[in-house]
């Protein structure tokens, strides 16, 4: 369904007075109404607010006309705080939580004229690669609804890929924007760590999380990134790095650009069709003027275990605040009807609230993370992982002395069937093999569609760039997009 158009088209049409914000919003909402019952991209649809907002924009054109996202419908992953709008992280423990503030990235979208239409489904607390870990049911891949859309930002990817909204925000800790983008055939970008404020993003792993845009074109993603990026006094980990217009200077060639091709990594357990699409994509890049250079990332194989040790450790701490005291679900110890309700003691209240409020994957990761940080194991696991993380960063620093971007497939396999891997968490974790390094090293990375499998499932090409050089990375991605 492409009736909405791209972000660029919608905004330009609004500026020219050809389409009103209300028209566009109505169209988005009717697409959602038609397709969401099957695809389940959304946890919450804020139809009424969206239309009111669109109307307000239409009636004050002078104020909004120059704004970069004027009248553009946007979907937000449900782990981004939206004031007055339910924010659940797809978890029972926050099923009725209404934040009293907006995430900075959300506030910036609104300042830019965006119209928020709802909160998207995701893996619970962003933990997962398939959107099957949602307490509210899985999201489905619009290309094949019996398959996963990827995760954890599955709902956001589905919303964009199915034409419900031209733009969505997701979050990426180990690939959670890029992998669903690849599996759904759209563009998804994770910025450099520190590029976009995490204030208002429900934290999963603080040193790895980043918020980023999903859209159908590289240009759209660049426009959105320009809006949300930049230092934030509310987030001490954001950088003072100036924000250029990322959508300026996107050309159709990649002349003078050097693309790194890691040798050892690409041959490990990757689906044949994915490898073929990847190789074809490298050819296109070469045609567009880029030079391909073999590079070596010797510690890449350690990335997944390092990621799971660090991410779960940080998560176990970040999720300690979900204790039923100040917000969220609290177990009341109801035994039978309310006349026989027992007051639980505090300790039991905590333990049952969290046991009942969190799903199995979240519990699994909290357990793992708690263990990794516990007395006697900290040095062997957490500290060790942080050291190997340094080695992985150095791998990339060395590679970037010779190239501007590193190219890899985004996901080793196309979308698998819903239910296929739920009982094997380790198998599920291995799906992140190409994406986690960018989080570990704090590097920007983008996934662009690079073909389909024989049975019509999308495949993605991932480009990883140097710290704060999203501009170069996007230019190369755009050149590829134009040339394929």
């Amino acid at each position: 369904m492409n009736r909405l158009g791209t972000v660029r088209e919608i905004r330009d049409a609004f500026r020219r007075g050809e389409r009103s914000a209300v028209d566009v919003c109505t169209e988005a909402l009717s697409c959602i109404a038609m397709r969401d019952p099957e695809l389940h991209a959304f946890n919450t649809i804020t139809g009424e607010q969206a239309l009111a907002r669109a109307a307000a924009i239409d009636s004050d054109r002078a104020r909004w006309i120059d704004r970069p996202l004027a009248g553009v419908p946007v979907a937000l992953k449900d782990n981004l705080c939206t004031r007055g709008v339910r924010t659940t992280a797809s978890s029972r423990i926050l099923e009725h939580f209404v934040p009293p503030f907006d995430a900075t990235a959300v506030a910036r979208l609104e300042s830019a004229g965006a119209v928020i239409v709802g909160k998207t489904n995701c893996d619970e607390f962003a933990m997962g690669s398939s959107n099957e870990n949602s307490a509210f049911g899985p999201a489905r891949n619009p290309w094949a609804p019996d398959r996963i859309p990827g995760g954890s930002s599955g709902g956001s990817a589905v919303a964009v890929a199915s034409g419900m909204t031209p733009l969505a925000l997701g979050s990426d800790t180990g690939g959670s924007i890029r992998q669903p983008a690849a599996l759904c055939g759209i563009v998804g970008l994770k910025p450099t760590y520190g590029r976009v404020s995490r204030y208002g993003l429900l934290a999963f792993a603080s040193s790895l999380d980043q918020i980023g845009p999903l859209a159908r074109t590289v240009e759209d993603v660049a426009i959105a990134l320009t809006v949300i990026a930049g230092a934030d006094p509310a987030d001490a980990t954001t950088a003072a790095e100036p924000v250029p217009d990322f959508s300026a200077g996107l050309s159709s060639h990649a002349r003078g650009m050097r693309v790194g091709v890691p040798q050892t990594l690409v041959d490990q357990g990757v689906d044949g069709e994915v490898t073929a699409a990847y190789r074809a994509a490298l050819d296109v890049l070469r045609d567009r003027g880029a030079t391909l250079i073999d590079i070596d990332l010797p510690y890449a194989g350690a990335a997944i275990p390092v990621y799971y040790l660090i991410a779960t450790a940080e998560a176990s701490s970040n999720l300690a605040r979900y204790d039923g005291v100040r917000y969220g679900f609290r177990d009341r110890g109801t035994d039978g009807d309310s006349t026989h309700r027992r007051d639980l003691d505090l300790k039991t209240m905590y333990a049952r609230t969290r046991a009942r409020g969190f799903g199995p994957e979240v519990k699994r990761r909290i357990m793992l993370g708690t263990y990794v940080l516990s007395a006697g194991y900290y040095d062997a696991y957490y500290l060790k992982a942080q050291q190997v993380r340094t080695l992985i960063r150095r791998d990339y620093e060395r590679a970037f002395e010779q190239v501007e971007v590193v190219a890899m497939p985004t996901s080793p396999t196309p979308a698998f069937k819903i239910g296929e891997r739920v009982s094997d968490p380790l198998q599920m974790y291995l799906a992140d093999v190409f994406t986690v390094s960018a989080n570990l090293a704090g590097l920007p990375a983008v996934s662009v569609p690079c073909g389909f499998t024989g049975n019509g499932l999308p495949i993605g090409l991932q480009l990883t760039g140097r710290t704060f050089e999203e501009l170069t990375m996007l230019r190369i991605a755009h050149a590829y997009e134009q040339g394929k």
Partner: protein
Amino acid sequence: MPVGFSRSEVQAIAALANLELDESELDLFARQLGEVLDYATQVQNIDTTGVPPTASLGVRHEADRADLVQPSLDRDLALSNAPDASLEAGLFKVPRVIG
């Protein structure tokens, strides 16, 4: 050598994490945690002599926050999500803490 977890070890971790697990979960997690950690053990074989841990990703603001008082949250709003609170007293409530 496989990293094995006994039920009581899993129980100890669950206690630290304040998670009440039932019998089947204890067994499941014992197995799954063991599998994941087994896999993660390969990290321990990597030589990291002289390699500093990545403490943070080095990005920072120019300056710390100035010591200025900013408006606080409206109290009713602060309490609005509480499972148990006294709006009148303006306080959150929890089961009584013993000790």
